[in-house]
């Protein structure tokens, strides 16, 4: 049997030492500005298909590789032309578009034409080859057909007016255009995950599961040159690891906890970006379950909670307070919404009137530090009003099923956080009666609300839509089943030479708009 002598062991040790001197070289090599490494909150999953994508990390990659007719501008939900040279709503149910000529799908799949637009959008309303509907097919629920009127021109015909199409579909992931020819050749499917054929600023060069995604600048892209020749996306699940990797310059951009911002800002060459979010966090009360079916009990709970104190404790004062689900700046934001303040005496009086001077309740919440802190503060506040609150802290898998089906009937209070989009119809859709048993965990049922919501969704006049959405939010407020906490804030650590491209909800990012400052 071979054995190592002392000399060989020493030689191996020396070799390791030499290797050690080169250990930091890859880190130094990343300081060039042709490449940037960004953190992903989790690994991405194929298929990289706009209508069958899993969630926002996959969507952000698709946004960089494909083009829509229009695209969001960074930092806003305003849109600009992308693949379209011209696009116009010519009537309530018809949108005309004309494509820029000469946009080439990479990989030799030819020019982007109106037929590709027709194929991309109509896939949403027709079952796939396997007979299954597209995961995001409902985004195009109002679509009747896309009529091709020329090589580069067409008409999007709708069954009913759908103003939200301009905000949550056409400039977003579902509105991205794929190549019919490439699709028929097997692209955008799971068996060839990186075969994502587009006309966008980047190519999906590499996806190594749980390791990295590499986007490479598309030399044939006809728009503004992207900021980097290469973007590397690294899945980093642990926020502390992401922070350490940022400190070691292995990541140049990562989301961080608001509480860590001040510390990270002290790192030389680092800067902190804080951005008001449009997501919404609230405490909901199940209006079906006694004694919470009594509006007096719900009002008492709302009166017993000091929201300002809750968000100060849970978020270290880094976020502002929310007064409704639609954030300031968005159409339908109710800027005159009531500012409910704490009144423990009034809360006790209401509970006594409802015949429950002492009450035991359960708050179901996610096992995230900010939410747990919020739960503890609410627990203390409700105790002063005679309400003993049990905290039911759950991990994501259990939590996100807590309000579904029959289980949802047993839910009492829940602390929820939903993501926002540019159109209020997205935020307000979850409170309709049809969502009871799915995402309307308050099980709040208001036919009047449903009517207002449906009507607002089919109008094209923005002012009238806004008015109806505000009326709908008044009904939400009257129910006292929703205690709005915050729209949150997105906080990022990034190198001072980097300009990011982030949309207001934080989750959606425009990799093609990341650039050296």
């Amino acid at each position, binding site marked *: 049997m071979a054995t190592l002598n002392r000399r060989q062991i020493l030689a191996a040790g020396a070799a390791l030492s030499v290797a050690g001197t080169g250990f930091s070289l890859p880190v130094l090599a990343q300081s060039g500005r042709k490449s940037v490494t960004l953190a992903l909150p989790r690994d991405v999953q194929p298929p990289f298909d706009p209508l069958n994508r899993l969630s926002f990390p996959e969507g952000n990659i698709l946004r960089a590789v494909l083009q829509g007719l229009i695209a969001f501008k960074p930092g806003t939900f305003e849109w600009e032309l992308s693949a379209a040279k011209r696009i116009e709503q010519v009537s309530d149910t018809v949108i005309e578009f004309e494509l820029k000529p000469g946009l080439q799908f990479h990989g030799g799949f030819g020019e982007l034409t109106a037929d590709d637009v027709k194929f991309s959008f109509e896939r949403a309303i027709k079952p796939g080859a396997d007979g299954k509907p597209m995961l995001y097919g409902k985004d195009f629920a109002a679509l009747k057909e896309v009529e091709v009127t020329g090589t580069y021109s067409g008409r999007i015909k709708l069954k009913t007016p759908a103003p939200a199409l301009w905000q949550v579909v056409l400039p977003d992931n579902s509105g991205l255009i794929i190549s019919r020819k490439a699709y028929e050749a097997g692209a955008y499917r799971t068996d060839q995950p990186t075969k994502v054929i587009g006309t966008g600023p980047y190519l999906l060069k590499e996806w190594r599961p749980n390791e990295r995604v590499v986007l490479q600048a598309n030399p044939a892209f006809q728009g503004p040159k992207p900021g980097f020749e290469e973007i590397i996306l*690294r899945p980093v699940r642990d926020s502390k690891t992401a922070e350490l990797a940022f400190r070691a310059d292995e990541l140049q951009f990562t989301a961080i906890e608001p509480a860590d911002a001040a510390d990270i800002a002290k790192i030389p060459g680092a800067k902190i970006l804080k951005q008001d979010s449009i997501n919404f966090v609230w405490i909901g009360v199940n209006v079906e379950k006694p004694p919470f079916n009594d509006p007096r009990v719900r009002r008492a709970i709302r009166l017993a909670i000091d929201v300002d104190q809750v968000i100060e404790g849970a978020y270290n004062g880094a976020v502002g307070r929310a007064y409704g689900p639609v954030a300031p700046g968005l159409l339908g934001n109710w800027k005159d919404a009531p500012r409910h303040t704490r009144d423990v005496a009034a809360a006790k009086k209401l509970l006594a009137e409802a015949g429950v001077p002492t009450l035991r309740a359960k708050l179901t919440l996610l096992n995230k530090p900010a939410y747990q802190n919020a739960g503890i503060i609410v627990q203390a506040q409700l105790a002063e009003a005679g309400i003993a609150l049990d905290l039911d802290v759950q991990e994501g898998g259990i939590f996100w099923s807590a309000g579904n089906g029959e289980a949802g009937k047993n839910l009492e209070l829940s602390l929820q956080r939903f993501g926002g989009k540019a159109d209020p119809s997205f935020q307000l859709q979850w409170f309709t009666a049809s969502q009871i048993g799915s995402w309307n965990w308050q099980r709040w049922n208001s036919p009047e609300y449903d009517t207002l919501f449906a009507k607002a969704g089919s109008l094209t006049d923005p002012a009238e839509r806004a008015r109806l959405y505000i009326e709908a939010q008044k009904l939400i407020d009257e129910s006292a089943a929703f205690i709005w906490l915050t729209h949150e804030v997105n906080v990022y650590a990034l190198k001072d030479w980097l300009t990011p491209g982030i949309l207001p909800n934080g989750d959606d990012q425009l990799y093609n708009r990341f650039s050296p400052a």
Partner: protein
Amino acid sequence: MRLLRRIGDRLATTALVLVGAVALVFALTLVIPGNPAQVLLGPRATPEAVQAFSQAMGLDRPVAERFALFLWNVLRGDLGNDVVSGRPIVTMVAEVLPYTVSLTLSAIGLAILFGVPLGCYAATHPGSLIDRAAAAVSIGFIAIPNFVVAILLLMVFSVWLDWFPVLGVSRSGTLGDQLARLALPALSLALGWIGYIARLLRASLLDVLGEAHIRTLRAYGVAERVIVYKYALKPAAIPTVAVLGLGVGRLLGGAIFAEIVFARPGIGTLVYDAIASRNYPVVQACVLVVVGLFTLTNLLVDLSYAWLDPRIAKAEER
């Protein structure tokens, strides 16, 4: 012949253990709250999409049918397809398994490399300063959770000293880069085991050094170093090898902390994500693979006893 029969017996036991483990995991997936389809598709999922996904996962089929189908497919070497991406689970496991195995073996290797000499020294110099210091440090490293050690190592060696990278693995990098990215995760797992092996070996070596045949060797004037390393270490290593066998199993599962903290691919992160998203086929497949590796390791450990101490082989022959 006896050896072959023994291997055959152990393989039969292994098969039973595998079926039992899979049955247990399968049963657990039935009682864990949370609709997998809803968890996977997230808050925007429509009821239609949830239903379609449930069908794709086979959740609408009777439990017994699902279990029987899974076992039958396993026997055919088919672990099924991932319900999220539709990719074959065998491929997904094969992609990450080398990372977990290399991490586990590196950690065990480091533990042996440092733990064995430390244990030998402590046994031959009981009560010395190094023995006492090693005891204190060992207990310290055993007591501190892996993920805390991992964060500390990152702070010191990656952020302050800039000797090692923070993140994951590097397929395209040089061998030095690969080793650099493996060093801290392996060390974070190994530190506790170094102390454990050192303490265990110290105790068993002290026992063996007190036995009659060792006294005879001393009486013949054999050098103490030869006595320790040639005659005492092999039989004294049996408890340590047994613990290492279990340790490989624990590390295969325990590597999850290192994989998450160091953002490395591996079985741990694969199963972590799968559990969080209720992706049961992937969970079942990962458990099957880990249990398989665990039992295989312990089979090798069992077989090594006879080599380490011929008295065991002789006793079995009787």
